[in-house]
Protein backbone atom coordinates (compact mmCIF):
# COMPACT_ATOMS: atom_id res chain seq x y z
CA UNK A 1 0.00 0.00 0.00
CA UNK A 2 2.88 2.36 0.80
CA UNK A 3 4.50 1.86 -2.61
CA UNK A 4 1.15 2.28 -4.33
CA UNK A 5 0.45 5.48 -2.37
CA UNK A 6 3.87 6.92 -3.19
CA UNK A 7 3.49 6.07 -6.87
CA UNK A 8 0.07 7.69 -7.10
CA UNK A 9 1.32 10.69 -5.17
CA UNK A 10 4.27 11.16 -7.52
CA UNK A 11 1.96 10.93 -10.52
CA UNK A 12 -0.41 13.50 -9.02
CA UNK A 13 2.44 15.93 -8.36
CA UNK A 14 3.77 15.48 -11.91
CA UNK A 15 0.32 16.08 -13.38
CA UNK A 16 -0.20 19.13 -11.17
CA UNK A 17 3.13 20.61 -12.30
CA UNK A 18 2.39 20.20 -16.00
CA UNK A 19 -1.15 21.51 -15.55
CA UNK A 20 0.22 24.57 -13.77
CA UNK A 21 2.60 25.20 -16.67
CA UNK A 22 -0.29 24.84 -19.11
CA UNK A 23 -2.55 27.22 -17.23
CA UNK A 24 0.32 29.68 -17.03
CA UNK A 25 1.02 29.29 -20.75
CA UNK A 26 -2.63 29.98 -21.65
CA UNK A 27 -1.95 33.67 -21.15
CA UNK A 28 0.38 33.72 -24.14
CA UNK A 29 -2.28 32.39 -26.50
CA UNK A 30 -3.56 35.92 -26.92
CA UNK A 31 -0.17 36.90 -28.35
CA UNK A 32 1.33 39.72 -26.31
CA UNK A 33 -0.43 40.10 -22.95
CA UNK A 34 0.90 43.63 -22.53
CA UNK A 35 -0.91 44.79 -25.68
CA UNK A 36 -4.04 43.00 -24.52
CA UNK A 37 -3.99 44.76 -21.15
CA UNK A 38 -3.16 48.13 -22.67
CA UNK A 39 -6.15 47.96 -24.98
CA UNK A 40 -6.49 49.71 -28.31
CA UNK A 41 -5.70 53.20 -27.07
CA UNK A 42 -2.30 52.27 -25.56
CA UNK A 43 0.80 53.94 -26.98
CA UNK A 44 4.13 52.13 -27.40
CA UNK A 45 5.40 53.80 -24.22
CA UNK A 46 2.34 52.54 -22.28
CA UNK A 47 2.93 49.01 -23.51
CA UNK A 48 6.61 49.16 -22.56
CA UNK A 49 5.60 50.39 -19.12
CA UNK A 50 3.03 47.60 -18.70
CA UNK A 51 5.59 45.05 -19.83
CA UNK A 52 8.04 46.21 -17.18
CA UNK A 53 5.53 46.56 -14.31
CA UNK A 54 3.97 43.14 -14.84
CA UNK A 55 7.31 41.47 -15.54
CA UNK A 56 6.51 40.47 -19.12
CA UNK A 57 10.02 41.53 -20.15
CA UNK A 58 11.49 38.56 -18.26
CA UNK A 59 12.11 35.24 -20.04
CA UNK A 60 9.00 33.09 -19.94
CA UNK A 61 10.46 30.36 -17.69
CA UNK A 62 11.55 32.99 -15.14
CA UNK A 63 8.02 34.34 -15.17
CA UNK A 64 6.63 30.84 -14.72
CA UNK A 65 8.98 29.98 -11.86
CA UNK A 66 8.20 33.24 -10.09
CA UNK A 67 4.48 32.65 -10.57
CA UNK A 68 4.45 29.02 -9.43
CA UNK A 69 6.76 29.81 -6.51
CA UNK A 70 4.35 32.45 -5.27
CA UNK A 71 1.30 30.30 -6.10
CA UNK A 72 2.63 27.52 -3.86
CA UNK A 73 2.60 30.02 -1.01
CA UNK A 74 -0.97 31.04 -1.88
CA UNK A 75 -0.02 34.24 -3.65
CA UNK A 76 -1.57 34.40 -7.13
CA UNK A 77 -0.67 38.01 -7.83
CA UNK A 78 -2.93 41.02 -8.14
CA UNK A 79 -6.14 40.99 -10.13
CA UNK A 80 -5.88 43.49 -12.99
CA UNK A 81 -9.53 44.37 -12.61
CA UNK A 82 -10.22 44.38 -8.87
CA UNK A 83 -6.77 45.68 -7.89
CA UNK A 84 -6.67 43.33 -4.88
CA UNK A 85 -4.82 40.01 -4.45
CA UNK A 86 -6.42 37.19 -6.46
CA UNK A 87 -6.23 34.91 -3.43
CA UNK A 88 -8.48 37.31 -1.54
CA UNK A 89 -11.11 37.32 -4.31
CA UNK A 90 -10.97 33.55 -4.58
CA UNK A 91 -11.36 33.12 -0.83
CA UNK A 92 -14.54 35.18 -1.07
CA UNK A 93 -15.86 33.22 -4.05
CA UNK A 94 -14.87 29.65 -3.21
CA UNK A 95 -17.54 29.00 -0.53
CA UNK A 96 -20.46 29.54 -2.94
CA UNK A 97 -18.95 27.09 -5.43
CA UNK A 98 -18.19 24.50 -2.76
CA UNK A 99 -21.69 24.78 -1.27
CA UNK A 100 -23.17 24.37 -4.74
CA UNK A 101 -20.89 21.43 -5.51
CA UNK A 102 -21.61 19.63 -2.23
CA UNK A 103 -25.35 20.16 -2.32
CA UNK A 104 -25.43 19.05 -5.95
CA UNK A 105 -23.54 15.81 -5.24
CA UNK A 106 -25.75 15.13 -2.20
CA UNK A 107 -28.85 15.79 -4.31
CA UNK A 108 -27.53 13.47 -7.03
CA UNK A 109 -26.71 10.68 -4.54
CA UNK A 110 -30.03 10.94 -2.68
CA UNK A 111 -31.94 10.36 -5.91
CA UNK A 112 -29.67 8.20 -8.00
CA UNK A 113 -28.65 5.61 -5.35
CA UNK A 114 -32.22 4.45 -4.52
CA UNK A 115 -33.22 4.67 -8.20
CA UNK A 116 -30.19 2.60 -9.19
CA UNK A 117 -30.88 0.00 -6.49
CA UNK A 118 -34.58 -0.32 -7.34
CA UNK A 119 -33.78 -0.47 -11.05
CA UNK A 120 -31.38 -3.34 -10.31
CA UNK A 121 -33.86 -5.29 -8.16
CA UNK A 122 -36.73 -4.78 -10.58
CA UNK A 123 -35.22 -4.50 -14.06
CA UNK A 124 -37.56 -3.59 -16.93
CA UNK A 125 -40.26 -2.18 -14.67
CA UNK A 126 -41.53 1.38 -14.93
CA UNK A 127 -39.01 2.54 -12.32
CA UNK A 128 -36.15 1.11 -14.35
CA UNK A 129 -37.58 2.76 -17.47
CA UNK A 130 -37.97 6.10 -15.68
CA UNK A 131 -34.37 5.91 -14.49
CA UNK A 132 -33.23 5.15 -18.03
CA UNK A 133 -35.35 7.97 -19.44
CA UNK A 134 -33.93 10.43 -16.90
CA UNK A 135 -30.36 9.53 -17.74
CA UNK A 136 -30.95 9.62 -21.50
CA UNK A 137 -32.48 13.09 -21.18
CA UNK A 138 -29.63 14.19 -18.92
CA UNK A 139 -27.15 13.35 -21.64
CA UNK A 140 -29.00 15.32 -24.28
CA UNK A 141 -30.22 18.44 -22.48
CA UNK A 142 -27.97 21.51 -22.48
CA UNK A 143 -27.40 22.39 -18.80
CA UNK A 144 -27.82 26.13 -19.28
CA UNK A 145 -31.10 25.51 -21.05
CA UNK A 146 -32.44 23.25 -18.29
CA UNK A 147 -31.49 25.99 -15.83
CA UNK A 148 -33.38 28.64 -17.78
CA UNK A 149 -36.44 26.41 -18.22
CA UNK A 150 -36.48 25.70 -14.51
CA UNK A 151 -36.26 29.44 -13.94
CA UNK A 152 -39.29 29.99 -16.20
CA UNK A 153 -41.17 27.29 -14.31
CA UNK A 154 -40.24 28.07 -10.69
CA UNK A 155 -39.63 31.82 -10.80
CA UNK A 156 -42.00 33.09 -13.48
CA UNK A 157 -45.00 30.76 -13.72
CA UNK A 158 -45.02 29.59 -10.10
CA UNK A 159 -43.08 32.31 -8.29
CA UNK A 160 -41.59 30.00 -5.66
CA UNK A 161 -37.86 30.69 -5.92
CA UNK A 162 -35.72 33.71 -6.70
CA UNK A 163 -34.33 33.50 -10.25
CA UNK A 164 -30.72 34.52 -9.59
CA UNK A 165 -28.29 35.72 -6.96
CA UNK A 166 -26.40 34.34 -3.95
CA UNK A 167 -28.18 35.96 -1.00
CA UNK A 168 -29.61 32.91 0.79
CA UNK A 169 -30.18 29.17 0.67
CA UNK A 170 -33.24 29.51 -1.58
CA UNK A 171 -30.95 30.86 -4.31
CA UNK A 172 -29.10 27.56 -4.37
CA UNK A 173 -32.13 25.28 -4.89
CA UNK A 174 -32.41 25.51 -8.67
CA UNK A 175 -28.66 25.47 -9.40
CA UNK A 176 -28.34 22.42 -7.14
CA UNK A 177 -31.08 20.57 -9.02
CA UNK A 178 -29.55 21.39 -12.41
CA UNK A 179 -25.94 20.64 -11.49
CA UNK A 180 -26.90 17.52 -9.51
CA UNK A 181 -29.02 16.22 -12.35
CA UNK A 182 -25.95 15.97 -14.58
CA UNK A 183 -24.11 13.81 -12.05
CA UNK A 184 -27.06 11.43 -11.70
CA UNK A 185 -26.83 9.28 -14.88
CA UNK A 186 -23.27 8.09 -14.15
CA UNK A 187 -23.99 7.28 -10.49
CA UNK A 188 -27.32 5.65 -11.32
CA UNK A 189 -25.91 3.43 -14.05
CA UNK A 190 -22.97 2.37 -11.91
CA UNK A 191 -25.19 1.56 -8.93
CA UNK A 192 -27.56 -0.43 -11.12
CA UNK A 193 -24.79 -2.39 -12.85
CA UNK A 194 -22.94 -2.98 -9.56
CA UNK A 195 -26.06 -4.15 -7.75
CA UNK A 196 -27.05 -6.48 -10.58
CA UNK A 197 -23.61 -8.05 -10.62
CA UNK A 198 -23.54 -8.49 -6.85
CA UNK A 199 -27.10 -9.83 -6.66
CA UNK A 200 -26.20 -12.52 -9.19
CA UNK A 201 -23.17 -13.64 -7.15
CA UNK A 202 -22.81 -16.83 -5.15
CA UNK A 203 -22.65 -15.29 -1.70
CA UNK A 204 -26.02 -13.60 -2.18
CA UNK A 205 -27.48 -16.96 -3.18
CA UNK A 206 -25.93 -18.46 -0.05
CA UNK A 207 -27.40 -15.68 2.07
CA UNK A 208 -30.80 -16.28 0.49
CA UNK A 209 -30.46 -20.02 1.07
CA UNK A 210 -29.67 -19.40 4.73
CA UNK A 211 -33.04 -17.69 4.89
CA UNK A 212 -31.82 -14.20 5.69
CA UNK A 213 -34.35 -11.43 5.33
CA UNK A 214 -34.21 -9.83 1.92
CA UNK A 215 -33.76 -6.36 3.43
CA UNK A 216 -30.72 -7.51 5.31
CA UNK A 217 -29.30 -9.16 2.21
CA UNK A 218 -29.86 -6.06 0.19
CA UNK A 219 -28.27 -3.57 2.52
CA UNK A 220 -25.75 -5.61 4.51
CA UNK A 221 -24.43 -7.83 1.76
CA UNK A 222 -25.22 -6.37 -1.64
CA UNK A 223 -25.20 -2.58 -1.38
CA UNK A 224 -21.97 -2.48 0.63
CA UNK A 225 -20.11 -4.20 -2.17
CA UNK A 226 -21.85 -2.49 -5.02
CA UNK A 227 -21.22 0.96 -3.59
CA UNK A 228 -17.40 0.86 -3.71
CA UNK A 229 -17.04 2.07 -7.30
CA UNK A 230 -19.85 4.59 -6.71
CA UNK A 231 -17.80 6.33 -4.04
CA UNK A 232 -14.87 6.97 -6.32
CA UNK A 233 -17.05 7.99 -9.23
CA UNK A 234 -18.84 10.47 -6.96
CA UNK A 235 -15.49 12.03 -6.09
CA UNK A 236 -14.60 12.37 -9.76
CA UNK A 237 -18.08 13.71 -10.57
CA UNK A 238 -17.65 16.30 -7.84
CA UNK A 239 -14.49 17.49 -9.56
CA UNK A 240 -16.27 17.62 -12.91
CA UNK A 241 -19.11 19.59 -11.35
CA UNK A 242 -16.75 22.23 -10.01
CA UNK A 243 -15.34 22.63 -13.52
CA UNK A 244 -18.80 22.70 -15.06
CA UNK A 245 -20.10 25.18 -12.51
CA UNK A 246 -18.98 28.03 -14.78
CA UNK A 247 -22.10 27.53 -16.91
CA UNK A 248 -24.56 27.06 -14.04
CA UNK A 249 -23.14 29.89 -11.95
CA UNK A 250 -23.38 32.22 -14.92
CA UNK A 251 -27.00 31.24 -15.58
CA UNK A 252 -28.05 31.81 -11.97
CA UNK A 253 -25.57 34.65 -11.26
CA UNK A 254 -24.11 32.74 -8.30
CA UNK A 255 -21.08 34.65 -7.05
CA UNK A 256 -18.75 31.66 -7.11
CA UNK A 257 -15.48 30.66 -8.73
CA UNK A 258 -17.09 29.73 -12.06
CA UNK A 259 -18.79 33.10 -12.36
CA UNK A 260 -15.52 34.75 -11.35
CA UNK A 261 -13.71 32.86 -14.12
CA UNK A 262 -16.30 33.92 -16.67
CA UNK A 263 -16.13 37.58 -15.65
CA UNK A 264 -12.34 37.52 -15.57
CA UNK A 265 -12.07 35.96 -19.02
CA UNK A 266 -14.33 38.66 -20.42
CA UNK A 267 -12.22 41.35 -18.70
CA UNK A 268 -8.85 39.85 -19.74
CA UNK A 269 -7.99 39.59 -16.04
CA UNK A 270 -5.25 37.00 -16.63
CA UNK A 271 -3.94 36.37 -13.09
CA UNK A 272 -7.46 35.53 -11.92
CA UNK A 273 -8.13 33.21 -14.87
CA UNK A 274 -4.84 31.36 -14.35
CA UNK A 275 -5.47 31.03 -10.63
CA UNK A 276 -9.03 29.70 -11.03
CA UNK A 277 -7.96 27.13 -13.63
CA UNK A 278 -5.06 26.02 -11.42
CA UNK A 279 -7.24 25.75 -8.30
CA UNK A 280 -9.94 23.75 -10.12
CA UNK A 281 -7.31 21.44 -11.63
CA UNK A 282 -5.64 20.87 -8.26
CA UNK A 283 -8.98 20.12 -6.58
CA UNK A 284 -9.72 17.61 -9.34
CA UNK A 285 -6.27 16.02 -9.03
CA UNK A 286 -6.61 15.72 -5.24
CA UNK A 287 -10.09 14.18 -5.60
CA UNK A 288 -8.98 11.57 -8.13
CA UNK A 289 -5.94 10.82 -5.98
CA UNK A 290 -8.20 10.32 -2.96
CA UNK A 291 -10.54 8.12 -5.01
CA UNK A 292 -7.64 6.01 -6.28
CA UNK A 293 -6.14 5.58 -2.82
CA UNK A 294 -9.55 4.67 -1.41
CA UNK A 295 -10.01 2.09 -4.15
CA UNK A 296 -6.54 0.73 -3.59
CA UNK A 297 -7.24 0.41 0.12
CA UNK A 298 -10.62 -1.29 -0.42
CA UNK A 299 -9.51 -3.54 -3.26
CA UNK A 300 -5.91 -4.79 -2.95
CA UNK A 301 -5.92 -6.09 -6.54
CA UNK A 302 -5.73 -2.51 -7.86
CA UNK A 303 -2.43 -1.86 -6.08
CA UNK A 304 -0.57 -4.42 -8.17
CA UNK A 305 -0.85 -2.66 -11.50
Amino acid sequence: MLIYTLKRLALAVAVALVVSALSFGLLYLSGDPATAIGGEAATDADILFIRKTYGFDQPIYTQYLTWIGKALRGDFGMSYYFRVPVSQIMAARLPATLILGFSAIVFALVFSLPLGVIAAIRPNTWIDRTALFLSVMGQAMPSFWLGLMLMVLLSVWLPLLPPSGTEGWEYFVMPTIVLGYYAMPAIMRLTRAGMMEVLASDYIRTARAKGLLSGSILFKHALRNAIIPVVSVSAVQFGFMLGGSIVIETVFAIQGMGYLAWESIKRSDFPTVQAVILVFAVIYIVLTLAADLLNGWLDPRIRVT
Partner: protein
Amino acid sequence: MEFRQIPAAEEILGPSPGQLLRRRIFGHKGLMIGGAILGIIILLALLAPLLSPHDPYQQSLVKRISKPFWSPDSKPEHPLGTDHVGRDYLSRLLYGARISLLIGFCVALISGVIGTALGVVAGYFGGRVDMVITFIITLRLSLPFVLVAVAVVGLVGGSLQVVILVLGLLLWNRYAVVMRSATQQIRNQDYIPAAEAVGCSTARILLSEILPNVLNSLVVVATLEMANAILLEAALSFLGLGVQPPTPSWGLMVSEGKDFLFFEPWLITIPGVALLVLVLAINLVGDGIRDVTAPENR
Protein backbone atom coordinates in the same frame (compact mmCIF):
# COMPACT_ATOMS: atom_id res chain seq x y z
CA MET B 1 -42.74 -38.44 -62.14
CA GLU B 2 -42.74 -35.98 -59.37
CA PHE B 3 -39.75 -33.88 -58.51
CA ARG B 4 -39.24 -32.93 -54.99
CA GLN B 5 -38.71 -29.26 -54.52
CA ILE B 6 -34.98 -28.70 -53.91
CA PRO B 7 -34.59 -26.41 -50.91
CA ALA B 8 -33.00 -23.09 -51.72
CA ALA B 9 -29.47 -22.45 -50.49
CA GLU B 10 -30.75 -19.95 -47.94
CA GLU B 11 -32.93 -22.53 -46.27
CA ILE B 12 -30.03 -24.86 -45.71
CA LEU B 13 -27.42 -22.32 -44.72
CA GLY B 14 -29.64 -19.95 -42.81
CA PRO B 15 -29.36 -16.20 -43.14
CA SER B 16 -25.98 -14.80 -44.20
CA PRO B 17 -24.03 -12.56 -41.80
CA GLY B 18 -25.00 -9.57 -43.94
CA GLN B 19 -28.67 -10.45 -43.69
CA LEU B 20 -28.36 -10.91 -39.93
CA LEU B 21 -26.73 -7.50 -39.62
CA ARG B 22 -29.44 -5.91 -41.74
CA ARG B 23 -32.10 -7.58 -39.63
CA ARG B 24 -30.47 -6.30 -36.46
CA ILE B 25 -30.25 -2.78 -37.88
CA PHE B 26 -33.87 -2.65 -39.02
CA GLY B 27 -35.09 -4.41 -35.90
CA HIS B 28 -33.45 -1.86 -33.60
CA LYS B 29 -36.13 0.68 -32.72
CA GLY B 30 -33.82 3.28 -31.18
CA LEU B 31 -31.44 3.20 -34.11
CA MET B 32 -34.29 3.56 -36.60
CA ILE B 33 -35.97 6.45 -34.76
CA GLY B 34 -32.67 8.23 -34.06
CA GLY B 35 -31.49 7.68 -37.61
CA ALA B 36 -34.74 9.02 -39.06
CA ILE B 37 -34.67 12.16 -36.90
CA LEU B 38 -30.98 12.75 -37.61
CA GLY B 39 -31.60 12.24 -41.33
CA ILE B 40 -34.41 14.78 -41.31
CA ILE B 41 -32.28 17.34 -39.45
CA ILE B 42 -29.36 16.85 -41.86
CA LEU B 43 -31.77 17.27 -44.79
CA LEU B 44 -33.27 20.43 -43.27
CA ALA B 45 -29.79 21.83 -42.68
CA LEU B 46 -28.67 21.09 -46.24
CA LEU B 47 -31.83 22.56 -47.73
CA ALA B 48 -31.89 25.56 -45.37
CA PRO B 49 -31.46 28.14 -48.19
CA LEU B 50 -34.45 26.64 -50.02
CA LEU B 51 -36.68 26.09 -46.99
CA SER B 52 -36.06 29.30 -45.07
CA PRO B 53 -38.89 31.76 -45.58
CA HIS B 54 -36.57 34.72 -44.88
CA ASP B 55 -32.91 35.71 -44.73
CA PRO B 56 -31.69 34.63 -41.25
CA TYR B 57 -29.64 37.83 -40.92
CA GLN B 58 -32.31 40.26 -42.11
CA GLN B 59 -33.23 42.56 -39.22
CA SER B 60 -36.39 44.57 -39.01
CA LEU B 61 -37.10 46.99 -36.20
CA VAL B 62 -40.83 47.10 -36.88
CA LYS B 63 -41.17 43.30 -36.65
CA ARG B 64 -39.40 42.78 -33.32
CA ILE B 65 -40.56 39.78 -31.25
CA SER B 66 -43.50 38.58 -33.23
CA LYS B 67 -45.11 35.58 -31.50
CA PRO B 68 -44.84 31.97 -32.73
CA PHE B 69 -47.71 30.09 -34.39
CA TRP B 70 -49.41 28.81 -31.20
CA SER B 71 -50.07 32.33 -30.03
CA PRO B 72 -53.19 34.13 -31.34
CA ASP B 73 -51.05 37.17 -32.22
CA SER B 74 -48.73 35.24 -34.53
CA LYS B 75 -48.13 36.39 -38.08
CA PRO B 76 -48.43 33.80 -40.86
CA GLU B 77 -45.20 34.93 -42.56
CA HIS B 78 -43.21 34.14 -39.37
CA PRO B 79 -44.40 30.70 -38.19
CA LEU B 80 -41.90 30.61 -35.32
CA GLY B 81 -42.01 34.34 -34.71
CA THR B 82 -39.11 36.80 -34.81
CA ASP B 83 -36.35 37.59 -32.32
CA HIS B 84 -35.45 40.82 -30.51
CA VAL B 85 -34.11 42.44 -33.69
CA GLY B 86 -36.89 41.16 -35.95
CA ARG B 87 -35.07 38.24 -37.57
CA ASP B 88 -37.23 35.30 -38.67
CA TYR B 89 -36.83 32.60 -36.01
CA LEU B 90 -37.59 29.65 -38.28
CA SER B 91 -34.90 30.70 -40.75
CA ARG B 92 -32.39 31.15 -37.93
CA LEU B 93 -33.31 27.75 -36.54
CA LEU B 94 -32.76 26.07 -39.93
CA TYR B 95 -29.40 27.78 -40.45
CA GLY B 96 -28.48 27.02 -36.84
CA ALA B 97 -28.77 23.30 -37.61
CA ARG B 98 -25.92 23.78 -40.10
CA ILE B 99 -23.69 25.30 -37.44
CA SER B 100 -24.40 22.56 -34.91
CA LEU B 101 -23.91 19.73 -37.41
CA LEU B 102 -20.77 21.31 -38.85
CA ILE B 103 -19.26 21.69 -35.40
CA GLY B 104 -20.29 18.16 -34.43
CA PHE B 105 -18.74 16.58 -37.53
CA CYS B 106 -15.53 18.62 -37.56
CA VAL B 107 -14.84 18.25 -33.83
CA ALA B 108 -15.56 14.51 -33.90
CA LEU B 109 -13.16 14.25 -36.85
CA ILE B 110 -10.27 16.28 -35.40
CA SER B 111 -10.49 14.80 -31.91
CA GLY B 112 -11.04 11.36 -33.49
CA VAL B 113 -7.78 11.55 -35.42
CA ILE B 114 -5.81 12.70 -32.36
CA GLY B 115 -7.41 10.30 -29.89
CA THR B 116 -7.32 7.28 -32.18
CA ALA B 117 -3.68 7.84 -33.05
CA LEU B 118 -2.73 8.14 -29.37
CA GLY B 119 -4.90 5.23 -28.26
CA VAL B 120 -3.87 2.77 -30.98
CA VAL B 121 -0.18 3.60 -30.59
CA ALA B 122 -0.38 3.24 -26.80
CA GLY B 123 -2.29 -0.03 -27.04
CA TYR B 124 -0.05 -1.54 -29.72
CA PHE B 125 3.38 -0.64 -28.36
CA GLY B 126 2.64 -0.77 -24.63
CA GLY B 127 5.55 -0.26 -22.20
CA ARG B 128 7.13 3.19 -22.11
CA VAL B 129 5.05 4.53 -24.99
CA ASP B 130 1.91 3.48 -23.17
CA MET B 131 3.13 5.12 -19.98
CA VAL B 132 3.78 8.43 -21.71
CA ILE B 133 0.42 8.43 -23.49
CA THR B 134 -1.44 7.42 -20.34
CA PHE B 135 0.22 10.37 -18.63
CA ILE B 136 -0.95 12.69 -21.41
CA ILE B 137 -4.49 11.33 -21.04
CA THR B 138 -4.39 11.84 -17.26
CA LEU B 139 -3.15 15.37 -17.86
CA ARG B 140 -5.98 16.16 -20.22
CA LEU B 141 -8.53 14.73 -17.76
CA SER B 142 -7.17 16.94 -14.98
CA LEU B 143 -7.76 20.14 -16.91
CA PRO B 144 -11.10 21.74 -16.05
CA PHE B 145 -12.32 21.26 -19.57
CA VAL B 146 -15.13 23.81 -19.98
CA LEU B 147 -13.09 26.45 -18.20
CA VAL B 148 -10.04 25.94 -20.41
CA ALA B 149 -12.15 25.97 -23.58
CA VAL B 150 -13.88 29.17 -22.49
CA ALA B 151 -10.57 30.78 -21.50
CA VAL B 152 -8.88 29.89 -24.79
CA VAL B 153 -11.79 31.14 -26.89
CA GLY B 154 -11.90 34.27 -24.74
CA LEU B 155 -8.20 34.94 -25.28
CA VAL B 156 -7.97 34.06 -28.97
CA GLY B 157 -11.33 35.54 -29.90
CA GLY B 158 -14.47 33.59 -30.75
CA SER B 159 -15.29 32.34 -34.22
CA LEU B 160 -16.57 29.12 -35.75
CA GLN B 161 -13.04 27.98 -36.67
CA VAL B 162 -11.62 28.72 -33.24
CA VAL B 163 -14.44 26.85 -31.49
CA ILE B 164 -13.98 23.82 -33.76
CA LEU B 165 -10.22 23.83 -33.21
CA VAL B 166 -10.37 24.28 -29.45
CA LEU B 167 -12.99 21.58 -28.94
CA GLY B 168 -11.22 19.29 -31.40
CA LEU B 169 -7.92 19.67 -29.56
CA LEU B 170 -9.54 19.04 -26.17
CA LEU B 171 -12.18 16.34 -26.72
CA TRP B 172 -9.93 13.44 -27.75
CA ASN B 173 -9.64 11.80 -24.33
CA ARG B 174 -12.52 9.33 -24.68
CA TYR B 175 -11.28 8.19 -28.10
CA ALA B 176 -7.81 7.63 -26.66
CA VAL B 177 -9.08 5.63 -23.67
CA VAL B 178 -11.45 3.45 -25.71
CA MET B 179 -9.04 2.89 -28.62
CA ARG B 180 -6.22 2.01 -26.20
CA SER B 181 -8.18 -0.74 -24.49
CA ALA B 182 -9.71 -1.97 -27.77
CA THR B 183 -6.20 -2.25 -29.28
CA GLN B 184 -4.88 -3.99 -26.17
CA GLN B 185 -7.65 -6.56 -26.53
CA ILE B 186 -6.79 -7.47 -30.12
CA ARG B 187 -3.05 -6.94 -29.73
CA ASN B 188 -2.39 -10.63 -29.04
CA GLN B 189 -4.86 -12.12 -31.50
CA ASP B 190 -3.12 -14.48 -33.92
CA TYR B 191 -3.34 -12.24 -36.97
CA ILE B 192 -1.19 -9.50 -35.43
CA PRO B 193 1.90 -11.66 -34.71
CA ALA B 194 1.25 -13.28 -38.09
CA ALA B 195 1.44 -9.94 -39.82
CA GLU B 196 4.59 -9.12 -37.85
CA ALA B 197 6.10 -12.47 -38.80
CA VAL B 198 5.64 -11.93 -42.53
CA GLY B 199 7.40 -8.60 -42.13
CA CYS B 200 4.59 -6.06 -42.44
CA SER B 201 5.67 -2.55 -41.58
CA THR B 202 4.40 -1.09 -38.31
CA ALA B 203 2.36 1.50 -40.19
CA ARG B 204 0.68 -1.25 -42.19
CA ILE B 205 -0.13 -3.27 -39.08
CA LEU B 206 -1.61 -0.25 -37.35
CA LEU B 207 -3.61 0.92 -40.35
CA SER B 208 -4.78 -2.25 -42.03
CA GLU B 209 -4.72 -4.85 -39.26
CA ILE B 210 -5.66 -2.96 -36.11
CA LEU B 211 -7.72 0.01 -37.28
CA PRO B 212 -10.42 -1.98 -39.15
CA ASN B 213 -10.86 -4.17 -36.09
CA VAL B 214 -11.43 -1.31 -33.67
CA LEU B 215 -13.66 0.59 -36.10
CA ASN B 216 -16.89 -0.37 -34.33
CA SER B 217 -15.90 1.22 -31.04
CA LEU B 218 -14.47 4.16 -32.96
CA VAL B 219 -17.81 4.90 -34.63
CA VAL B 220 -19.65 4.63 -31.31
CA VAL B 221 -17.26 7.06 -29.58
CA ALA B 222 -17.44 9.38 -32.59
CA THR B 223 -21.22 9.74 -32.32
CA LEU B 224 -21.03 10.36 -28.57
CA GLU B 225 -18.32 12.98 -29.04
CA MET B 226 -20.29 14.61 -31.81
CA ALA B 227 -23.24 15.03 -29.44
CA ASN B 228 -20.85 16.26 -26.77
CA ALA B 229 -19.28 18.83 -29.11
CA ILE B 230 -22.69 20.18 -30.13
CA LEU B 231 -23.68 20.66 -26.47
CA LEU B 232 -20.34 22.29 -25.66
CA GLU B 233 -20.51 24.68 -28.59
CA ALA B 234 -23.99 25.68 -27.43
CA ALA B 235 -22.68 26.24 -23.90
CA LEU B 236 -19.69 28.30 -25.12
CA SER B 237 -21.87 30.39 -27.40
CA PHE B 238 -24.37 30.81 -24.57
CA LEU B 239 -21.56 32.21 -22.40
CA GLY B 240 -20.71 34.64 -25.20
CA LEU B 241 -17.34 32.93 -25.69
CA GLY B 242 -18.10 30.76 -28.68
CA VAL B 243 -19.55 31.47 -32.09
CA GLN B 244 -20.16 35.21 -32.33
CA PRO B 245 -23.31 37.06 -33.33
CA PRO B 246 -24.96 37.43 -35.77
CA THR B 247 -24.23 33.77 -36.64
CA PRO B 248 -27.40 31.73 -36.10
CA SER B 249 -26.10 29.27 -33.49
CA TRP B 250 -28.68 27.60 -31.27
CA GLY B 251 -26.67 28.31 -28.12
CA LEU B 252 -26.41 31.95 -29.11
CA MET B 253 -30.16 32.07 -29.77
CA VAL B 254 -30.82 30.85 -26.20
CA SER B 255 -28.36 33.44 -24.91
CA GLU B 256 -30.02 36.27 -26.85
CA GLY B 257 -33.47 35.10 -25.78
CA LYS B 258 -32.70 34.89 -22.06
CA ASP B 259 -33.16 38.64 -21.58
CA PHE B 260 -36.82 38.09 -22.54
CA LEU B 261 -37.19 35.07 -20.23
CA PHE B 262 -40.05 36.56 -18.26
CA PHE B 263 -42.41 37.47 -21.08
CA GLU B 264 -41.24 35.52 -24.12
CA PRO B 265 -39.95 32.17 -22.84
CA TRP B 266 -40.54 30.57 -26.25
CA LEU B 267 -37.45 32.43 -27.47
CA ILE B 268 -35.32 30.02 -25.42
CA THR B 269 -37.66 27.03 -25.59
CA ILE B 270 -37.45 26.65 -29.37
CA PRO B 271 -33.65 26.54 -29.87
CA GLY B 272 -33.30 24.49 -26.66
CA VAL B 273 -35.75 21.85 -27.88
CA ALA B 274 -33.91 21.80 -31.22
CA LEU B 275 -30.63 21.08 -29.40
CA LEU B 276 -32.28 18.44 -27.25
CA VAL B 277 -33.83 16.63 -30.25
CA LEU B 278 -30.60 16.70 -32.29
CA VAL B 279 -28.41 15.43 -29.45
CA LEU B 280 -30.99 12.81 -28.48
CA ALA B 281 -31.10 11.54 -32.08
CA ILE B 282 -27.30 11.34 -32.30
CA ASN B 283 -27.12 9.47 -28.97
CA LEU B 284 -29.82 7.03 -30.08
CA VAL B 285 -27.85 6.34 -33.26
CA GLY B 286 -24.63 5.87 -31.27
CA ASP B 287 -26.23 3.46 -28.78
CA GLY B 288 -27.93 1.69 -31.68
CA ILE B 289 -24.67 1.18 -33.54
CA ARG B 290 -23.10 -0.22 -30.36
CA ASP B 291 -25.95 -2.69 -29.88
CA VAL B 292 -25.99 -3.74 -33.52
CA THR B 293 -22.26 -4.17 -34.04
CA ALA B 294 -21.51 -5.76 -30.68
CA PRO B 295 -24.68 -7.64 -29.70
CA GLU B 296 -22.75 -9.67 -27.14
CA ASN B 297 -22.11 -6.51 -25.10
CA ARG B 298 -25.74 -5.64 -24.59
